[in-house]
């Protein structure tokens, strides 16, 4: 089966003097597969997915999105991307935002009339009449996921999709991922919420400082009797210089009586 997306020896740095944000990352994702990209803050997860979505230019390596370059509009028409901290034109309402994106996706009037109310209902924003500028972080995140699925993508990239969601919202996202997987949609989940990844992903790659430390199916990465968190912490700590785990002294000091 041809991969939906494949990246090979991907490299990116933001300034010439900076260390590589992404350095030699390689992976591929097939239809119906849920791939978890894990890593601590600043490990290069978001840079990777932004390069796949054509939002950042790689400094090296090759990306193939549906057999084309990420900048190709036909390839991006099959992609749904929910960014980490989603934002939208702030004076529009949720329905207008989806109408805007439906227009960009080239959906006709009938499809818009069908998809927009259903997508709003899924996101729990169907009764919402306020403008985006008055939305909470969680509401923006819901709208971010809603716009990502609006075009019925064949690849859904979710960058920290549940970071600002309440437990019900998280459950909805898990159900969405399961349902999409079952219908053959590939899901690239970018998260450091390991319990969540463990529940929904078939394959994972653990990143630190732009490098892939370990990649494979969940069974390959997590040996029996251990958790994903154990493996993650062990790998990340081994790749980083020793760090003192001591709390700040002003926290641990006992107050003078």
């Amino acid at each position, binding site marked *: 089966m041809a991969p939906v997306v494949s990246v090979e020896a991907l490299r990116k740095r933001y300034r010439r003097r900076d260390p590589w944000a992404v350095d030699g990352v390689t992976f591929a994702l097939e239809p119906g597969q849920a791939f978890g990209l894990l890593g601590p803050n600043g490990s290069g997860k978001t840079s990777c997915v932004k390069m796949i*979505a054509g939002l950042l230019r790689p400094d090296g390596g090759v990306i193939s999105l549906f057999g084309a370059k990420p900048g190709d509009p036909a390839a991006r028409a099959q992609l749904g991307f929910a960014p980490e901290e989603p*934002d939208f*034109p*702030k*004076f529009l309402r949720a329905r207008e935002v989806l109408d805007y994106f439906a227009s960009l*996706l080239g959906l006709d009037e009938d499809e818009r009339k069908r998809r927009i109310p259903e997508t709003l209902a899924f996101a729990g924003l169907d009764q919402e009449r306020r403008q985006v500028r008055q939305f909470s972080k969680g509401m923006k995140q819901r709208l971010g996921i809603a716009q990502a699925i609006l075009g019925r993508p064949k690849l859904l990239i979710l960058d920290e999709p549940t970071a600002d969601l309440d437990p019900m919202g998280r459950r909805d996202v898990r159900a969405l991922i399961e349902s999409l997987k079952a219908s053959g949609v590939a899901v690239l989940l970018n998260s450091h919420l390991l319990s969540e990844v463990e529940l929904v992903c078939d394959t994972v790659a653990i990143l630190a400082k732009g490098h892939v430390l370990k990649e494979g199916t969940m069974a390959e990465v997590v040996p029996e009797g251990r958790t994903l968190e154990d493996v993650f912490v062990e790998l990340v700590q081994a790749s980083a210089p020793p760090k003192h785990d001591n709390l700040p002294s002003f926290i641990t000091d006992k107050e003078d009586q």
Partner: protein
Amino acid sequence: MKGTLAVARFTLIDLSRRRILLVFAILGAVGIAGIGTILKIFSSTFAGAAFTGSPGSAPPDPAKINRFLDLMFVSDLVGALGLFALLIAFGIGMTAIYHDLESGAAVAIFSKPVSRFAFTAGKVAAAAVAMIVIVGLLSIEAMLVGLLFGGGLEQTLVAEAVAQVANALTLMLIVLALSTWMNNIVAAILAFIYNAAAGVVVALHNQSAAGNLGDNAILNGGLNVLYWLVPHQLTSDAPRELVKAEVELFSTPGQPGPDVSQAVASVPGPSDLTDILWWAFVVILFASLVYVAVRRRQV
């Protein structure tokens, strides 16, 4: 094309709800009505009495006085219109693209199958339409104010209003182009400085062309080079008409007075085809700069 229209449509909806534009539009509407009314009342009550002519000479022709006052009135109205057109140009230029790029809205937009060219074209088109609509409404209001007080100079006002819109459009594109590279407040300040410097260069060039700066070849040559590096403000024949009427008003028939053609030579005349072509070139240039900046932008 569909992408451009979608971007333009929703940018217009977004812009129409921005309070800063609403405030500028209301200030403009109130300002033009207020300035027009005050000036007209003032000029018809007091100014007519001031034109009694020099001692011992015949009083000036009342028709000339009226013509002069009407021109002055139109000049003040278009001055007010120009000021609010500039404010609106800054308001739109600072927000139309900048907020999408800085807020992260561009991340979701650019992940959709829309080219950066279509996005830029839609944004520039929406910004231009928003400005033309707001300044157009203010111009209609200015014309109504003019009609209310006698009228007869609508043609002059229309030509000057078109020139003001064209000039504001250039400024808006400069702010748009700069705000895709830098903070929008810094962009507005730089655009203001550049626009003011361009105005000085054009004014000096006009003086040089009229022979008022002497025959220093280096100075005149330098001004000529600078003149073709900055946008030229488009003008109607209103400023020259005003000066001409003023000179004619104060000249006494049969006595030597100031030469009309010499007096108006230093005042910018109506823009000719070269100026209009240069304006079109500058508009295309700055719109292209906006596109280059958006295309290069990583979000």
